[in-house]
């Protein structure tokens, strides 16, 4: 670019400090105004012509080049996205500015704010949210010099993007920025033109949208901070209704939520937003049904939603040649729906289809620790359907496998207990399959994705604390795409669940030392559910026996210490001062966990104590504990108890007693 400006007084002046453009003539100014008027009227063809004329006169004026490409883009009904993207990059090159605002950006770049905004808009519609966000976040640093209307657009798009990437606090911050901006504008405009009712009504509309944003932010951060905002949600538009329904859903008013969602919409693409309401409707209704304890209906509804999604995706892009307009490029909800479907299937006790859903999802949302845990849970449920499975009749049929020979040579072949398929997993766990070694791989991933355990954090030295400045003004959230982010308490709960599952899987794969470590880590966590504490002691005891620390195991397995085996945390009384209303969520899992009474839980623990004694050859103690536990464990004894009884009899030389026991309990007719 040669500098042909005659105003240069110094030879040393570099070109980037000065716009090298020739001054704008009056005629060019008129052309520019005419083009803008045409653009605002919507006559894009005319506008494009005008802009071509202007561009002929000012070929190196970056802004002219940009507006010309904008006009052409609108003229193509926003279909020529590739051309437009190309033109934007030409502009970046001409202006010698960084395309992503990354390197040595300075205030001057705000001159080109429109270019960056347009690039972000394209990225937004093309689903590249984080890239768009990165550009706009940098642009936002220089928001002051930017023209007001554009600044507002930038902030609104930022809000939308923050919500999409689940950063509710940032979104809320941005909303308050817009509000500040609006109030500033109101004051200044009061002196200028009070009669501009048009702008007043548009400001009102904008305020309604901001209210909706605020409600969505608080729903996402799981605290309705300001009920007033919710109450002031205006209108009957679908975005408002869906937010209202979500609020009622989270509060537990499920029927009300279903009612607000209204009647099922038709399956078609909305021509303003490029979305398909039917997909969202079916999905949200499924969520409500899930909470109404109807997982099977819910599964059908999500499947419907997946179908609609498929159909709309196909309709918008029937083949490679036809391109939909930019703003109508349909954003597939496939993975979100699949994620929901997986959760529903798992809770409907169908681990195998759930596994398939989660496995597909985890390729996309591989940073979500909860998703990895769910995968492991599928494997665990596949391996052990529930905890009453030991009581099933089929297992009792295996206690006496067969008889061999006859006469003096007759032998009884006993079963080997339930744990006979030890060492069956040789895949190393990285092969995705419904087995425990893959579960162990998933759990390692899940744990690695959690932030550092606060229990392990070194106390921050005083001076470092002073240096790091004030603590962040809002709570840290852990991303859990595609779901809402996790608060610290949820992260803590997740950590407990991961540790419990890890200890279990390690025991099953004979990794006893690791199992012990996980159990110890679990038991030191401050907020455990009754069930987790119970399991922690039980797993730790078993691991200790395997590691030959039987004396420690005996204290660990004391049944008297069990006070509670509920799977939920006790309700924490919310802080009344903050007036934050915790949302009544679906805290109870619809999959009931067993044992669900303290008595049965104690009996099972006592059985394990009996096993521990038997390992130390204290057979009398073992028999006593076994007898006591079998009295209390309820009807249909777990089959392990029969095995242990036989074992103890045989070990003590009571072969006759053992044979009698077999005759009595297994309908086996010994012929002696």
């Amino acid at each position: 670019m040669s500098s042909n400006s005659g105003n240069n007084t110094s030879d040393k002046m570099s070109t980037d400090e000065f716009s090298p453009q020739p001054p704008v003539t009056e005629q060019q100014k008129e052309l520019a105004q005419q083009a803008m008027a045409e653009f605002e009227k919507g006559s894009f063809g005319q506008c494009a012509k005008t802009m071509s004329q202007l561009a002929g006169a000012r070929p190196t004026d970056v802004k002219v080049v940009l507006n010309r490409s904008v006009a052409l883009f609108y003229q193509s009904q926003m279909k020529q996205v590739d051309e437009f993207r190309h033109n934007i990059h030409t502009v970046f090159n001409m202006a010698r500015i960084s395309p992503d605002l990354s390197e040595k950006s300075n205030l001057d770049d705000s001159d080109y704010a429109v270019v960056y905004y347009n690039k972000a808009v394209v990225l937004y519609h093309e689903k590249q949210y984080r890239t768009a966000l990165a550009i706009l976040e940098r642009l936002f640093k220089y928001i002051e010099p930017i023209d007001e209307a554009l600044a507002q657009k930038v902030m609104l798009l930022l809000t939308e993007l923050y919500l999409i990437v689940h950063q509710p606090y940032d979104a809320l911050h941005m909303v308050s920025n817009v509000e500040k901006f609006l109030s500033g504008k109101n004051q200044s405009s009061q002196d200028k033109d009070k009669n501009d009712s048009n702008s007043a009504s548009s400001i009102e509309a904008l305020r309604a949208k901001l209210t909706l944003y605020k409600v969505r932010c608080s729903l996402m951060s799981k605290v309705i901070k300001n009920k007033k905002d919710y109450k002031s949600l205006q209108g009957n538009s679908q975005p408002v209704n869906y937010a209202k329904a979500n609020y009622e859903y989270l509060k537990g008013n499920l029927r009300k939520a279903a009612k607000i969602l209204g009647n099922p919409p038709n399956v078609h693409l909305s021509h303003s937003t490029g979305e398909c309401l039917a997909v969202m409707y079916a999905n949200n209704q499924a969520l409500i049904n899930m909470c109404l304890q109807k997982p099977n209906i819910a599964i059908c509804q999500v499947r419907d939603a997946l179908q609609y999604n498929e159909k709309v995706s196909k309709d918008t892009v029937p083949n490679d040649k036809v391109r939909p307009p930019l703003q109508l490029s349909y954003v597939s909800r496939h993975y979100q729906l699949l994620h929901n479907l997986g959760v529903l299937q798992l809770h409907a006790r169908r681990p195998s289809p759930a596994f398939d859903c989660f496995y597909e999802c985890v390729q996309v949302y591989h940073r979500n620790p909860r998703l990895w845990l769910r995968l492991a849970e599928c494997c665990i449920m596949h391996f052990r359907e529930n905890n009453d499975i030991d009581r099933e009749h089929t297992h009792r049929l295996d206690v006496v496998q067969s008889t061999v020979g006859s006469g003096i040579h007759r032998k009884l072949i006993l079963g080997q207990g339930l744990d006979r398929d030890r060492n069956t997993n040789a895949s190393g766990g990285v092969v995705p399959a419904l087995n425990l070694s893959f579960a162990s791989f998933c759990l390692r991933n899940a744990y690695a994705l959690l932030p550092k355990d606060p229990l392990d954090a070194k106390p921050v030295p005083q001076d470092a604390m002073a240096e790091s400045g004030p603590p962040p003004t809002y709570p840290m959230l852990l991303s859990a795409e595609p779901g809402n982010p996790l608060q610290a308490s949820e992260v803590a709960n997740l950590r407990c669940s991961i540790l419990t599952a890890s200890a279990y899987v390690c025991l099953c794969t004979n990794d006893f030392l690791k199992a012990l470590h996980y159990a110890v880590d679990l038991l030191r966590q401050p907020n455990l559910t009754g069930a987790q504490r119970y399991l922690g002691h039980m797993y730790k005891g078993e691991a200790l026996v395997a590691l030959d620390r039987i004396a420690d195991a005996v204290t660990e397995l004391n049944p008297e210490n069990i006070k509670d085996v509920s799977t939920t945390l006790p309700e924490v009384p919310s802080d009344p001062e903050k007036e934050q209303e915790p949302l009544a969520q679906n805290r109870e899992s619809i999959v009931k966990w067993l044992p669900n009474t303290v008595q049965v839980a104690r009996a099972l623990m006592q059985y394990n104590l009996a096993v521990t004694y038997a390992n130390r050859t204290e057979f009398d103690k073992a028999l006593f504990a076994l007898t006591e536990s079998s009295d209390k464990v309820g009807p249909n004894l777990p089959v392990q108890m029969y095995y242990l009884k036989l074992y103890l009899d045989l070990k003590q030389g009571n072969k006759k007693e053992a044979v009698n026991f077999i005759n009595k309990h297994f309908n086996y007719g010994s012929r002696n």
Partner: protein
Amino acid sequence: MAALTVKELASLLSVLSEDTTQAQNFESLAASFHHYFPNKQDRFKVGQSLVLLLQHRDLLPHPTQKLAAVFILFEMYQSDPVSANPFATVFLTLLQDPAERKEANAYDLQSSIPSVSAAERYFLSNLICRTSKEMLKKTPAEIIQMDVSGKQPMDISQTQLFIVQRQSEMPHSSKTAISCVLADPESKPTSFEHFGKPNMINPDVQRDTAEVLLTGRKCSVDHTLRPEFIRLAPPLHIAEDELVWMFPTDMEFNVAWDTTMCMNMSTGFEVRRLMAKAFKGALSPGQQAQIKRELDKDAKLVYNIGLAPAKLPDLVENNPLVAIEVLLKLMNSAQITDYFQVLVNMEMSLHSMEVVNRLTTQVDLPSEFVHLYISNCITTCETIKDRYFQNRLVRLTCVFLQSLIRNKTIDVKDIFIEVQAFCIEFSRIREAAALFRLLKSLDPNEKEQGSKDGDGGGKKD
């Protein structure tokens, strides 16, 4: 673990057959065993099978067979020390006094093996101690009939100790397993032949039973029963807000038109030109006034005059008054901290002090910034080498500090210690002494009173 094949079992049983064990001596038994089982890796499974056969009296009914089986257990690992023999505990059990054994007659892997005679024990102890090869020349039958009265078995306590020690090193849980095969002889006859002869050996049934127990894929030889924990699976994780609720979007975002095209170029251009000059040299008062005028006219203009934070030091040095104007205009921008950062870190000078001083009188500067600036000044004074410049800078700093204190811009309490030390260090300079007196007059105790009043007064101003 692989089981024996039917053929291997037949070979083993032929070595252990009643006829063979009656007729052949131990050496030839060993030779024929090694003939059938030349591979070392087969030995463990053979050993397991031998133990199972030994446990069930009916499968190796004749004493010579039993002795031969025990001998082969030894012979298989005879190149290693006895304590390393995986079946060493079998010998240990057999060598126990029969009286002792009765007490612990448990249904154990080892102890269910029937006990042996004194002659056999004598033979076994000799075998373990590897004392005489002579005995191997005898047949099992001869050994059993041997008269050992008066002969003491060899002392094998050392070996016993080794074996026991090795056993105790293993965890309890590895020693719990028992065989799944439970002898349940029928006391009632099943066929006419058996009538009245409940303990009659039927060679066909015997062979079939051994075959079922010891061969095939699902054979019982390595099936064991052990005490087994009930291992409860954990409950599903309860997530409070896991499912994705879907919201329709409420906004449309479209590509935007640049409304600033071909506009506002002229004034901005002129100011930018003047600013570019201002970075390089002092402007005339008229030019300075022009910049101020234009900046006042358009609040957004200040962002478009090409003043990046990095250029601020040049502006401060050349045109402190313009710098003050610009900074005041930028005060509300998010960028202002960047400018402060630069200002604090730039080389200390009369002009920079002037700028900071003026700013303190016109706006509320963040107190960290002022403190940082003061401590920078003090450090610069202390580290500078040139005596002349040092004196000059110290004087400047003192005047600057006095002005800050008098204007109540800073609270003396916060910087009292540092400034006092500074004054003492440079007490040779008149201004420092004056500053020191000023500090003393605002003694912290009195000062508290004073500062409260002062603060109140300051705000009113």
